[in-house]
């Protein structure tokens, strides 16, 4: 890179002596070349690993492709099958939506509650914050999914704890009605990173607002409802969008806890898990590409919808 930059300078400097046409190119290079040299790795990555593959995957989604023979054009057949004749797709959709709808609100509620408790000048803030954040950092690993699988097993720790209160817990993981809750609890347990963003947001609320409110005799709950919550809506919005997109993309916990099957009876068949099974289990690469594009569409629609509705409840200071 150093050599490249020096060349650019040399070309620029030497250009003055040359005919005008060449000089113009040299000066354009001198002016813009450095930017593109620095951008080069990213540009290669963008075309080679993002844009190119995205176009290829759109093409593949209209083909039947098993990795061995050349892709065979099938028109919209993949999409038609997804929409009309694929019960596993329907199951994956249902499970994924259920997971999003259950895990995100609980997670955000915990994050906000704890952030508010911590924001009130609690002693030992950094210790608490670290403890609550730790699971967010560890949570994506296989070790935690393995641990969870044990905690919620029929003879696992959760049921042992429940037994001490005389409650007989079900076999959470192998029962289709409960298995999803195991994953929801795992997700909620990782409320640390939205909590930190909430904490940062709470710090931005100007003090004088509360002072004015307490002079007017507003009660704490009212202060929260009238001041904290509205001023925090941009952060709530941000967290909600990020966490929801994240939940749509969840993979590892469902894979490990169900042993890669999405069972029992597809009750933990996350969308990404189904995509993985189709692509790398059944080698239906064309079909999986179509699934991928549908996921993109869903996430895009969700994001657009969030931004459209946000004007009615998110307050930006003005």
């Amino acid at each position, binding site marked *: 890179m150093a050599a490249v*930059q020096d060349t*650019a300078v040399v070309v620029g400097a030497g250009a003055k002596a040359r005919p005008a046409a060449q000089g113009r190119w040299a000066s354009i290079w001198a002016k*813009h070349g*450095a*930017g*593109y040299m*620095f*951008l*080069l*790795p*990213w540009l*290669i*990555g963008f075309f080679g*690993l*993002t844009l*190119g*593959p995205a176009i290829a*995957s759109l093409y*593949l989604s209209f083909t039947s492709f098993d*990795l061995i023979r050349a892709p065979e054009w099938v028109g919209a057949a993949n999409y038609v099958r997804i929409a009309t004749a694929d019960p596993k797709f329907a199951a994956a959709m249902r499970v994924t939506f259920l997971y999003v709808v259950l895990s995100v609100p609980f997670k955000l509620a915990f994050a906000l509650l704890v952030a*508010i408790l911590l924001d009130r*000048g*609690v*002693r030992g803030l950094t210790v608490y914050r670290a403890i609550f*954040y*730790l699971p967010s*950092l*560890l949570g*994506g*690993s*296989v*070790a935690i999914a*393995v*641990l*969870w*699988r*044990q*905690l919620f097993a029929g003879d696992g*720790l959760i049921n*042992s704890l429940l037994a001490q209160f005389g409650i007989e817990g079900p076999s959470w993981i192998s029962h289709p009605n409960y298995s999803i809750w195991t994953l929801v609890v795992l997700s909620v*347990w990782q409320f640390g*990173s939205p909590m930190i*963003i909430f*904490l*940062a*947001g709470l*710090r931005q609320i100007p*003090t004088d607002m509360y*002072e004015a409110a307490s002079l007017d005799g507003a009660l*704490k709950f009212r202060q929260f409802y009238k001041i904290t919550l509205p001023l925090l809506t941009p*952060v709530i919005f941000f*967290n909600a969008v*990020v966490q929801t997109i994240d939940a749509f*993309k969840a993979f590892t916990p469902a894979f490990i806890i169900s042993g890669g099957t999405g069972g029992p009876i597809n009750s933990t068949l996350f969308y990404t898990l189904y995509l993985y099974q189709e692509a*790398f289990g059944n080698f239906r690469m064309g079909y999986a590409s179509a699934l*991928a594009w549908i*996921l*993109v569409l869903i996430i895009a629609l969700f*994001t657009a919808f969030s931004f459209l509705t946000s004007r009615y409840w998110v307050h*930006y200071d003005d």
Partner: protein
Amino acid sequence: MTDATMNLVTAPPSAPLGRRGPLGSVLVHAGLIAASIAMLYPLLWMISASVRPEDEIFASTSLWPSSIDFASYLRGWFGLDVSFGRFFWNSLVVAVLTVIGNVVACSLAAYAFARLRFAGRNFWFATMLGTLMIPYHVTLIPQYVLFLNLGWVNTFLPLVVPKFLASDAFFIFLMVQFFRGIPRELDEAAMMDGCGAWRIYWKIMLPLSLPVLATAAIFSFIWTWDDFFGPLIYLNDMNTYTIQLGLRTFVDSSSTSDWGGLFAMSTLSLVPVFFFFLFFQRLLIEGIATTGMKR
């Protein structure tokens, strides 16, 4: 990313929602302590299970083992055809290369976006931000086909090479934010002294940006260490397995027989992440608070 989350950590702390009396304070601490215990209990239980005698693992919900026994660690370590030492080494290689790739490639791009003027800069910057929103699933299959045709499956190249091409746009964004805050006068003075863009990047930008480079490096390391999906797709030969794949294989091969070994290896696999967390907590938390990074 919304602007709202951008400059939050630097803002002055807000006053609490009114002062609390001593009773309120005790209640809040009681609540927080109870919640902390609930949060940590599964982790502590796992660590305790890893040093418990085999027959005692599920017998007790207590965190205190009756006697400490490291046999599980030995059994776990050598429990597969390939030892866990190999998996740790593989993870370490992949993670270190990823860190280098991310820091080098992302800081180059971020410097161009933040400090250099060139035609099309705004267009490319918007494009880069756009890639943040694309789920990796869209590029997954063609990328796999590409790497398969290059003969890179069962090597670390598919996991590492993209990082040298700045594929984690998150870090570019993070660095751009930081670079913009460095006074322009420094560049101008350096330029007067005859420094080119490269020298300014190397001699001024990078040394002044150590906090953000460290943040990116630490997150890179942790995310790579925890990554399961990438290795699952690209590594099929047990000799190339990372720690996450090794652990999963161990689950499959011994799920009913050797819980002690499983918990021992699980605990070990978390150690590097925990270590980084312990030493760089402040950087990690600021990284989250300023950009909302999350994985």
